[in-house]
């Protein structure tokens, strides 16, 4: 079943909500919050329709919308989702209402602007995940910068302006090079006789040999795309904007940043870098894997020594996202499955961690670990839920973090045992920094008198954290629900890589007339990986 306008509605409903917010009086905080929440919840409800209509067996894009937009150069309004983007959209629509709830009381200055920024941000992020036209993708990619810039810069903490500028300038530097690369790719398609910005069409052309990229061009284009995505992820050594942005951002900003914005980078690698530039991806894979592993280990080690709880969680993101990048560039069906799963589970568990840290901040207005200590006594519920989230983030079996990391390591190990061995260090370290920080914050005796009277989580906060805990548990034990829907698309990424390479090597240039036809299935991609995959999923489902 294909709903005709579902994705358009999903993309622009938040903006419509933001416009409606503009009509409210600025002092009317209660109604501004309610309207924002209603919009975000409605958005989430609508996004669930995606699940109902999603065909998990199909490899292509679903819910597609295709309209002409700008004729010269030919740019189309082309939307669609597949297994890679489906759950990322759902993650976005889930985290936005939670962020709004989390900011219910903590944001009391310029409330209207805050919720407008948050909703516009949601539109930008969803747009990134559903765009299938390179130009449209870039448009959303850049548009999303401005609300995030405001969220950090206006409602952030002391060094917010520095952090906001750093965030925008870093991202812009990468993305402007990506724009040049997009246009270059367009020029190449024009030279081949079919000028287009359409991702699906470019993929078809690459598959059937209508379009062949010389290896030097491919590597340069790959470099430009990859740099933009790597900054966003962020991959070591491009990560330095992240701790600042996270630490200075308000809770909702951190949740959105860690939960979904970082995934735009890894999503971009899966969606663009691998299928469009397979040869370059292969050639650079060892270097990228090394950077990813360094990021995993370095992020974990730096997280260990942080004195600021929020900064600690931020560095843990560097470490966890390193796993995702490693999984992608291991080019193994299982590791890529794991990468996709890890994106989701990191979004949930790190989102929950930031929500918890935000709740502590609301009470004490500090993130410093030494200011806390023994908090389990005054606030047992918050402490218990926070511990649960820490376990999830550290990759405890039965919880969501385990599934992603296990799949990534299993898949990577099948191809590159050394990479997997080094990366496994990150799993150990993550337990160290998370549990050690937990111990310092929640266990032991109360170190500060003013902490003794802190109120425990109220109904709103409990609702948020219990919901997150439930999702963490569900993702941990019900992972096939997710993996079965992402499997076809991850296989497809690998297939696109293989076909393209075969044709680049000069096989089958006579198939020029095949434009738009469905490619015949290529048997035998990772036949051995299929067994490993089924082992992995049966392990999880037990």
């Amino acid at each position: 079943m294909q709903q005709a306008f579902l994705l358009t509605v999903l993309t622009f409903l938040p903006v419509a909500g933001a416009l409606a917010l503009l009509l409210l009086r600025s002092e009317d905080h209660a109604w501004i919050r309610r309207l924002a929440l209603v919009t975000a919840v409605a958005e989430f409800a609508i996004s669930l329709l995606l699940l109902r209509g999603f065909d998990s067996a199909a490899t292509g894009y679903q819910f597609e919308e295709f309209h002409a937009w700008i004729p010269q150069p030919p740019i189309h309004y082309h939307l669609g989702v597949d297994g890679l983007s489906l759950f990322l959209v759902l993650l976005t629509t889930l985290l936005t209402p939670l962020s709004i709830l989390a900011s219910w009381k903590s944001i009391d200055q310029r409330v209207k602007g805050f919720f407008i920024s948050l909703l516009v941000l949601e539109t930008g992020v969803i747009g990134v995940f559903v765009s299938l036209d390179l130009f449209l993708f870039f448009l959303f990619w850049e548009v999303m910068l401005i609300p995030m810039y405001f969220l950090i810069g206006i409602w952030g903490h002391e060094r917010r302006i520095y952090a906001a500028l750093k965030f925008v300038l870093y991202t812009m530097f990468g993305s402007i090079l990506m724009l040049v690369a997009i246009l270059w790719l367009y020029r190449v398609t024009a030279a081949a006789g079919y000028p287009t910005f359409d991702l699906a069409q470019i993929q078809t052309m690459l598959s059937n040999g209508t379009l062949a990229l010389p290896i030097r061009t491919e590597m340069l284009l790959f470099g430009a795309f990859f740099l933009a995505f790597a900054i966003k992820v962020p991959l070591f050594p491009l990560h330095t904007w992240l701790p600042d942005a996270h630490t200075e951002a308000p809770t909702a900003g951190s949740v959105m940043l860690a939960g979904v914005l970082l995934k735009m980078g890894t999503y971009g690698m899966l969606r663009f870098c691998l299928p469009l530039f397979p040869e370059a991806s292969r050639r650079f894979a060892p270097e990228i894997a090394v950077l990813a592993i360094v990021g995993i280990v370095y992020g974990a080690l730096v997280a260990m020594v942080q004195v600021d709880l929020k900064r600690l969680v931020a560095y843990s993101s560097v470490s966890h996202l390193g796993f995702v990048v490693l999984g992608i560039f291991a080019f193994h069906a299982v590791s890529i499955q794991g990468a996709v799963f890890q994106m989701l589970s990191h979004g949930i568990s790190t989102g929950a961690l930031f929500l918890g840290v935000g709740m502590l901040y609301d009470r004490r207005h500090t993130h410093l670990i030494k200011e806390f200590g023994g908090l389990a006594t005054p606030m047992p519920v918050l402490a218990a839920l926070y511990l649960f989230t820490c376990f999830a983030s550290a990759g405890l079996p039965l919880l969501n973090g385990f599934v992603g990391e296990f799949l990534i390591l299993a898949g990577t190990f099948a191809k590159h045992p050394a990479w997997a061995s080094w990366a496994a260090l990150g799993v150990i370290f993550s337990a160290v920094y998370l549990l050690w920080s937990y111990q310092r914050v929640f266990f032991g005796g109360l170190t500060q008198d003013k902490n003794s009277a802190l109120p425990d989580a109220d109904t709103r906060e409990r609702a948020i954290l219990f919901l997150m805990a439930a999702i963490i548990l569900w993702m941990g034990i019900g992972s096939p629900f997710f993996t079965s829907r992402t499997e076809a698309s991850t296989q497809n990424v690998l297939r696109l890589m293989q076909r393209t390479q075969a044709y680049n090597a000069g096989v089958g240039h006579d198939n020029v007339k095949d434009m738009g036809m469905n490619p015949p299935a290529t048997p035998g991609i990772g036949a051995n990986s299929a067994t490993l995959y089924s082992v992995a999923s049966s392990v999880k489902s037990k």
Partner: protein
Amino acid sequence: MLPPLQDLYRIAPELVLCAFGMLVMFLSPIVPKARHAVLLAISLLGAGLALAATRFPALYPGAAYSGLLRADAFSLFVHWIVIGVAFLAILGSANYLKRENLDAGEFCALILFATAGMGVMAGAQELLTAFIGLEMSSIASYILASYKRDAPRSNEAAMKYFLLGSFATAFFLYGIALTYGATGTTHLDLMGPAGAQTSGTLLKMGLGLIFVGLAFKVAAAPFQLWTPDVYEGAPAPVTALLSTGPKAATFALALRILVNVEAASALWFWALWVAAVLSMFAGNLGALVQTSLKRMLAYSSIAHAGYILVALAAAAATDHPEAGIAAALFYLVSYALVKLGAFLIVAQLGGTGERHVDIEDFTGLAHRQPAMAACLSLFLLSLLGLPVTAGFLGKFYIFNAALESNLIWLALLLALNSVIGAYYYLRVMVAMYMREPKQEIASEPVPWTLSVVLWIAAAGTVYVGLFPTRVIEFAAKAALTMR
């Protein structure tokens, strides 16, 4: 004897502009000072009618006055920009003139005359005609720059502009003379393919001098030194006009020469390349350290001249210059809208005597005047080149043209400069949204005339940013009709 009717049709916009300019001059001593709104209304009517009169050259395209002028889609496009700018500038400065107690009659008349000159430049197919247009617009601009007669900075600005501008026009004129010596004609279309002597030293020198004259007028480095001082010293509405209209007309003239004279595209390519890079860096690096918003915008306009020069270089580098020309035209539209709006906001918020034009003075503007802050942010984001604004598509088309001509390095330098530019545009937004004001600045209510102009500029920026089809298709058509 009267010229043939068709020739008159082809210069109808200029005729209307000049007629209304003279009418306003004639009425200005008669109308009492309290009734100056009448003069403004008449001038607006004149600009509006001139805009309507562009229908005539649209209906009767072709060469006028035995090839001195040409009415085609290209000249039509530029006419719309310059007359539209004049209309908005007059409307936007209505309140400024009243506040600064300046005479409205002469001001409007000068704008109308300058615009007529720009119109001539846009249509000129012959170098001396182009020179007349250039002088018409320049001389009016010199006077406009010094319009606040008792303000020393305004006088300083006008003096600098006049002295350096005269040099530049002298260069331009000398260039015309040498070119005439080399080719035996001043008609652009006759210089092209017919001239066998298209590579002589004399021609090279002539074209080089012409380039210098034009580069001065568009504030391209290394001939940009006057720009910050003049833009800062001139009354802000005049700066709004100077940084948009004459620039568009001069770029139009440069494009006309580039396309018609084959020797020019070969000779100018590297000059354009170097000037583009120098302007981008000079403008952006200069803007980084400015404390005055007005001066920062002046530097940014140098950088933007550099961006447009990239499009010109792209046009010069290939036998099919259409993409480059269309990109330059599109960029001029998007640039004119935001620059005009930004300078008019500075004029309004600067307060009497333009005392508050430092970035510092804009702190907390989002609290005091949220609409103005939002509007200025939109313009700055467009200058920065973020999507959903016209500025983004403008840059997009320039990138596209540069890559089509294989100017990858130039594209990369443009990309680098966009990021440098982001820093100082965002700094203004930081001040407006993220800092608390140090001192309380009384905010004057925004007059409706200015609101209208800002609404048009903002709506235009977003509309063109989302639905560029009409503008870019017309620009592409204009590029095709040039030869």
